[in-house]
């Protein structure tokens, strides 16, 4: 086969473009709707907690229930439509991922029960950081550096919220950075990664 230097360059550019487009499309399909869902839930919960701080516990419990119901709907929709990608060689992977998240939050709530923190802001930051730590682990597990970066950036903004932002504005800060960050990232993926 005779291929000119220019043709080879075009082929390599096509390969790089296709690989990048595929990875983005798969990530968008898998986590885009989840980020939008949880982003909306947490933004609403933080804003509601800012205006009704005494009801923050109930607001977040209700938010977590709405988010869990939303996830169930997304999973049901995917089971009817069929997945965009799947790996029959590793059927237990999804189960192990779900088990990891279940364990992470089971441990988090056990630690909360043991340590009995009195400060609602620190307890909230702790739970956010458990979720962000989980995201970093997922990133390392699936070789997704963007997840690791988002996890670290989220951790830093949460710590800034605890130590550098006046406690009165913690919920507004978290609504913008944590909830807004998730929502913005999810919408960006769904709109831009076509």
């Amino acid at each position: 086969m005779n291929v000119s230097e220019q043709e080879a360059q075009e082929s390599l550019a096509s390969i790089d473009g296709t690989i990048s487009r595929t990875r983005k499309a798969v990530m968008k399909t898998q986590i885009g709707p989840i980020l939008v869902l949880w982003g909306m839930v947490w933004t609403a919960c933080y804003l509601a907690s800012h205006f009704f701080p005494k009801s923050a516990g109930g607001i977040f419990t209700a938010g977590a229930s709405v988010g869990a119901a939303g996830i169930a709907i997304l999973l049901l929709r995917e089971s009817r439509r069929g997945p965009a990608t799947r790996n029959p060689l590793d059927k237990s992977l999804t189960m192990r991922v779900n088990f990891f998240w279940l364990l992470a939050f089971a441990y988090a709530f056990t630690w909360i029960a043991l340590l009995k923190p009195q400060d609602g802001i620190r307890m909230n930051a702790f739970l956010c950081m458990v979720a962000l730590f989980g995201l970093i682990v997922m990133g390392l597990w699936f070789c997704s550096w963007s997840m690791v970066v988002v996890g670290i950036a989220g951790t830093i903004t949460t710590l800034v919220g605890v130590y550098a932002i006046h406690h009165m504005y913690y919920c507004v800060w978290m609504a913008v950075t944590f909830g807004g960050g998730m929502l913005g990232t999810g919408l960006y993926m769904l709109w831009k990664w076509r």
Partner: protein
Amino acid sequence: MSELDSVIHQPARLQIMASLVALGVGEQMEFVYLRELLKLTDGNLGGHLAKLEDAKYVKVEKTFIARKPKTFVAATDRGRDAFSEHVKALRDIIGKKK
């Protein structure tokens, strides 16, 4: 020195292989999803997949999900090796080291 692969070199097949190799080992992509991703028609994608399947570079699996027929495609180990060799050969042509 690596050699170019005439089966893979065709532009549409090159994109198909690049998409499937971008997934993890053994990971499959649904036919319609791949078709929309690469902006190909049903017949075009089916024809190119048949050629890649003949060369044992991809494996096509038909199944049913919620009573609807679904087709999944994955790059085989042989396909991944051939793709990797093809990329090396292209890099050799432009004198670019990996």
